[in-house]
C-alpha cells in the first residue's frame, strides 16, 4: 500500500498544527463559531446530535494493521471505545472533544492518516473496489489510479471551494463493487481494442434528494491524460455549477440541466485547452505509485477447505470472495451481527482485526462501503483458523449480501440531519429474519436504510430501500424496491404510503413473501422484481 514520503508527512503534520491553533483561538474566543465552522469541517470535525463527530479518511478503504490499531487506540483514548465504519469507506467517532481534537489528529498523523477533506465542498476521499488488487475478475489493480487522484485532489487550490461536495470512485473490473455510477465522477479502468489501458468516465451520478445514474461521457481516456480529463470535468463544474441553491449544486444537476451532450462538449473543449497547458503529472509518477501496490509474496497451499463443519462451510460460501490466486481468497469480516449496529466496531474488535490482518493477510485490511471489513489475501489453508478466531470474538456472522447484511446510516440516533432512526430498524430486521430462518432461502438481497433524504444509507440503491421521514414529528418510513448499485445500476421506486416502525418491518417480510412465491429458478430478489414489476408487491402491501 502507499506509504507517505516526506512531503506527505510534512503536509499532514503542518495541518495538525494549523488546526491546533485554530481550535485554540476558538476556545479562547478569538474567533466565532461562524468563523471556526468551515475550518473544523475542512478537518472532518462536525458538531452532531450529541457531541463533536470526527470523520477520518481511509483512502480507498485501504489500511494496514498499525493504522487499524491506532483507530482502536483513538476509540479508547478520545471516544467511548468504539467507531463507526461508514458507507464512504471511512470511520467516524461520535464523542470527540474539541479541546482534544488536535492531539487526536497528531496521533493519526503518526500513522500516516488524517481527516482532511472528509467534509466541506471539496473532493472527498476517493473510493474504490474493496477487493482491489485481489479480485480474480479485475483487469488491473485500481488503487494506483485512486492514489494518483488522491494526491492530485489533496489541497488542490482550484477545487477547495466547489459549489458542493464531490465524490470520485475508481474501479477496474466489470463487476462494480464501488457504486461507481452513483458518484460525481465514476472511473472504470478498461482496455481498448488495441489492448491499451485507459479510463471510461461516468459523470453526474449521485444519491441524495435527487438520485441520478451517471451517464458515460467518454469511453476511453488514455492513462497519460487521466488527471487532465478529471480536471476538465471539475473545471466545467466549478465554473457553472449552481452556488445559489445547495440542493441544486451537485454536478448531477449541472449535467442534467445542461444535458449530457452539452456538458460533454464543454469538458472536451476544456480538455483540449488543458492538454496544451501540460497539467498532467509525469507518467513516471503513475509508474512509481504502482510499485506501492505490487503483489505480496504469495505462498502455495491448499485450494479447498474441509467442509465437514457446516457453520464453517456456510461462512466460507457466504463471506469469501474469489481471489486472483487459486489458493487464496478475500475474507469478509461482517460487522452485522444479528441485532447489532451496522458498521460499529469496538476498540477490542479493531485490535483483533488488525492482529488477524497481520497474521493472515499480509498486514492489509479494507473497509467496504457496505460497512464490513475485508482481509484481502487469506490463504485457503488458513481459513479455518481465521474463522475460529472470528467466531470466538462474535465477528463470524455468515451473512454477506444477505438481508441481514444491512447498510444503515447513523440516523436520528447520532445525526443532526436525520429525520428518523435507521439503526433500530436494521437491528430488528436482522433479528426478524434470523428468527424466521429465511435469510439463506432469500439469498442475495441488499437492504439499505437512510434516516433522511441525504441518503447516506444508500436507500435508492437497495434491492429493498427504506427512507426515514418526519411525519408531523413522528418517525415514518417509506419503502423502495428495485435499486442496485452494482454494474446493473438502478434506482429504487417508492411502493406507496409510508409505515411506522413496526409496519415497515412487517412490510419487509411481506415483500420477501411475494418474492419467494413468485421467483423463478436462480432469480435474486432484484431479478424477480424486474421481471414482475411493482404491482404484485403493492397489492400485498396495501390491499
Amino acid at each position, binding site marked *: 500500500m502507499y506509504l507517505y514520503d516526506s512531503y506527505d508527512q510534512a503536509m499532514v503534520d503542518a495541518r495538525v498544527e494549523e488546526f491546533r491553533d485554530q481550535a485554540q483561538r476558538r*476556545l479562547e*474566543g478569538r474567533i466565532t463559531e461562524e468563523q471556526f465552522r468551515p475550518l473544523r469541517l475542512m478537518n472532518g470535525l462536525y458538531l452532531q446530535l450529541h457531541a463533536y463527530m470526527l470523520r477520518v479518511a481511509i483512502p480507498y478503504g485501504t489500511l494496514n494493521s498499525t493504522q487499524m490499531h491506532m483507530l482502536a487506540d483513538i476509540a479508547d483514548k478520545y471516544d467511548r471505545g468504539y467507531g463507526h465504519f461508514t458507507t464512504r469507506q471511512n470511520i467516524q467517532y461520535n464523542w470527540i472533544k474539541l*479541546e482534544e481534537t488536535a492531539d487526536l489528529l497528531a496521533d493519526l498523523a503518526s500513522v500516516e492518516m488524517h481527516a482532511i477533506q472528509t467534509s466541506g465542498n471539496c473532493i472527498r476521499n476517493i473510493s474504490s473496489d474493496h477487493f482491489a488488487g485481489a479480485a480474480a475478475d479485475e483487469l488491473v489493480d485500481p488503487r494506483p489510479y485512486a492514489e494518483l487522484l488522491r494526491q492530485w485532489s489533496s489541497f488542490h487550490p482550484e477545487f477547495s471551494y466547489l459549489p458542493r461536495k464531490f465524490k470520485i470512485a475508481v474501479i477496474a473490473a466489470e463487476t462494480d463493487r464501488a457504486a461507481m455510477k452513483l458518484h460525481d465522477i465514476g472511473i472504470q479502468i478498461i482496455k481498448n481494442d488495441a489492448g491499451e489501458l485507459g479510463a471510461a468516465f461516468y459523470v453526474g451520478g449521485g444519491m441524495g434528494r435527487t438520485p441520478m445514474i451517471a451517464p458515460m461521457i467518454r469511453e476511453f481516456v488514455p492513462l497519460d491524460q487521466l488527471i487532465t480529463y478529471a480536471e476538465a470535468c471539475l473545471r466545467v463544474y466549478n465554473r457553472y455549477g449552481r452556488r445559489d441553491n445547495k440542493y441544486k449544486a451537485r454536478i448531477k444537476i449541472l449535467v442534467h440541466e445542461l444535458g449530457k451532450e452539452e456538458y460533454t462538449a464543454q469538458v472536451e473543449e476544456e480538455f483540449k485547452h488543458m492538454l496544451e497547458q501540460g497539467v498532467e503529472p509525469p507518467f513516471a509518477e503513475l509508474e512509481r505509485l504502482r510499485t506501492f501496490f505490487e503483489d505480496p509474496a504469495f505462498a502455495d497451499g491448499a485450494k479447498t477447505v474441509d467442509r465437514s463443519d457446516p457453520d464453517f462451510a456456510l461462512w466460507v460460501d457466504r463471506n469469501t470472495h474469489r481471489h486472483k490466486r487459486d489458493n487464496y481468497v478475500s475474507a469478509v469480516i461482517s460487522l452485522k451481527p444479528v441485532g447489532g449496529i451496522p458498521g460499529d466496531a469496538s476498540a477490542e474488535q479493531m485490535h483483533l482485526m488488525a492482529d488477524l490482518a497481520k497474521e493472515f493477510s499480509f498486514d492489509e485490511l479494507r473497509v467496504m462501503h457496505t460497512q464490513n471489513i475485508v482481509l484481502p489475501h487469506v490463504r485457503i489453508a488458513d481459513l479455518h483458523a481465521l474463522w475460529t478466531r472470528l467466531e470466538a470474538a462474535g465477528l463470524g456472522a455468515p451473512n454477506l449480501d444477505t438481508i441481514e447484511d444491512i447498510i444503515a446510516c447513523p440516523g436520528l440516533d447520532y445525526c443532526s440531519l436525520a429525520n428518523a432512526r435507521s439503526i433500530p430498524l436494521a437491528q430488528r430486521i436482522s433479528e426478524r429474519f434470523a428468527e424466521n430462518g429465511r435469510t439463506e432461502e432469500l439469498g442475495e438481497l441488499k437492504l439499505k436504510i437512510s434516516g433522511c433524504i441525504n441518503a447516506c444509507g444508500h436507500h435508492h440503491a437497495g434491492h429493498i430501500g427504506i427512507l426515514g421521514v418526519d411525519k408531523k414529528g413522528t418517525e415514518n418510513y417509506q419503502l423502495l424496491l428495485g435499486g442496485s448499485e452494482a454494474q446493473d445500476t438502478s434506482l429504487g421506486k417508492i411502493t406507496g404510503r409510508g409505515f411506522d416502525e413496526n409496519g415497515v418491518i412487517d412490510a419487509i417480510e411481506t415483500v420477501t413473501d411475494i418474492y419467494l412465491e413468485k421467483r423463478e429458478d436462480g432469480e435474486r430478489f432484484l431479478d424477480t422484481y424486474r421481471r414482475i414489476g411493482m404491482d404484485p408487491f403493492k397489492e400485498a402491501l396495501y390491499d
Partner: protein
Amino acid sequence: MKILTGNDLKTGEVIWWDGESWSRHVDDAVDVGDAADAILAREDAARRVNSGYAIEASQEGDRVRPAHIKDRVRALGPTVRPDLTLKPDDPDAIREVV
C-alpha cells in the same frame, strides 16, 4: 414552554439552560419565555454554550419533555446504546423518547 439547548464548546456535550447556568439534564431546563435571544447572545459571547437554540417543550411533573423527537434523543443519548445514555439503568427511558 420554551427552553434553551446547545453544546458545550470544549466537550460538545448537550446542555440545557437551567436559569443560572447550563445543565446536562433536560429536566433542569426552565421556561425562558421571551428571553431566549438575549440569553443565547450573552451565553454564546461568554463561550458557555456553542450553537445554542430555543425549542418547544412541555413540563410533565418533574420532567421536561422536548416537543420534537430529535431533541428528546439529544436529551437522552443514542437509543441504540442504552449504556451511553444519561439513564443507562432506566428501562423506560428509550420508550419515553420514542
